[in-house]
């Protein structure tokens, strides 16, 4: 159920600074015309680096907490 989970980018809040693009270790996110977009979802490792670097809290990586 979590295979397709990706960081959520709130483009209304994004200030287009591009830090998430630079921070992504796998180049999964690129700056497109409407803002940062995860263009290679298979490359995303959900490392949360983009969320940590975002200065305006526009990117969220949530975790469910469950038992095995």
């Amino acid at each position: 159920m979590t295979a397709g989970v990706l960081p959520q980018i709130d483009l209304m809040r994004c200030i287009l600074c591009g830090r998430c693009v630079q921070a992504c270790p796998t180049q999964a996110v690129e700056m497109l015309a409407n803002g940062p977009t995860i263009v290679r979802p298979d490359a995303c490792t959900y490392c949360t680096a983009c969320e940590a670097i975002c200065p305006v809290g526009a990117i969220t990586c949530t975790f469910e907490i469950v038992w095995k």
Partner: protein
Amino acid sequence: MDDYLRNSLSTMPLFAGLSEATLGRLSRVAFRRTYAPGMLILLEGAPCESVFFIVTGAVRVYRLSPQGRQQILATLGPGQGFNTAPPFLPEGRTPASVEAIGETTVLAIRQEDFVALARTCADFSWAILQDFAAHLLHLTDLVEDLALRSVRGRLARFLLEQADGAYVTRPWTQDEIAAHLGTVRDVVGRALRSLADAGLLRMERGRIVLLDREGLEAEAGA
């Protein structure tokens, strides 16, 4: 009489013991409000105008440090009340900010109506006392956590509570976990990695999978 209000009130465990007469009085003074996700419901320090009881959704109760660091005091869900203490104090002010987590519907009661009910309806006063007691015990646990446990221990306890459904359960960001534990995101990240290295949990895409209850309980008690 508003049937929605009366039904909402009567299904709340907090008000399950109220008489028909008290429920009727309550439903005449309560009013419904719905808040969008992330909307600020109350601001710390503002004059108290109303008390609230959650019908659906959840809220985050928090204080901010002068440096802007957030300490979450509680995450509340359906049936739980907030801002119920200030009406009993002279010049009582809202003690903490409250924000809707998802779309949240509450029943609000103006403070003068709330106090009048508490003064005249013993069953209502008893219900509010029970709510106070639950808040007091929760805050006592929080003080113990902040004063006596390491971040790793607080995190282990938080993870156990969430996975066991002790409180409002939902997906969390690492920033939110940090605000809940009274620390910062980097420290939470390191603590998660150390618990994973110890074999107590596994980090997956969008999931923190707990693996070892005994080990986590030992960490939480440490």
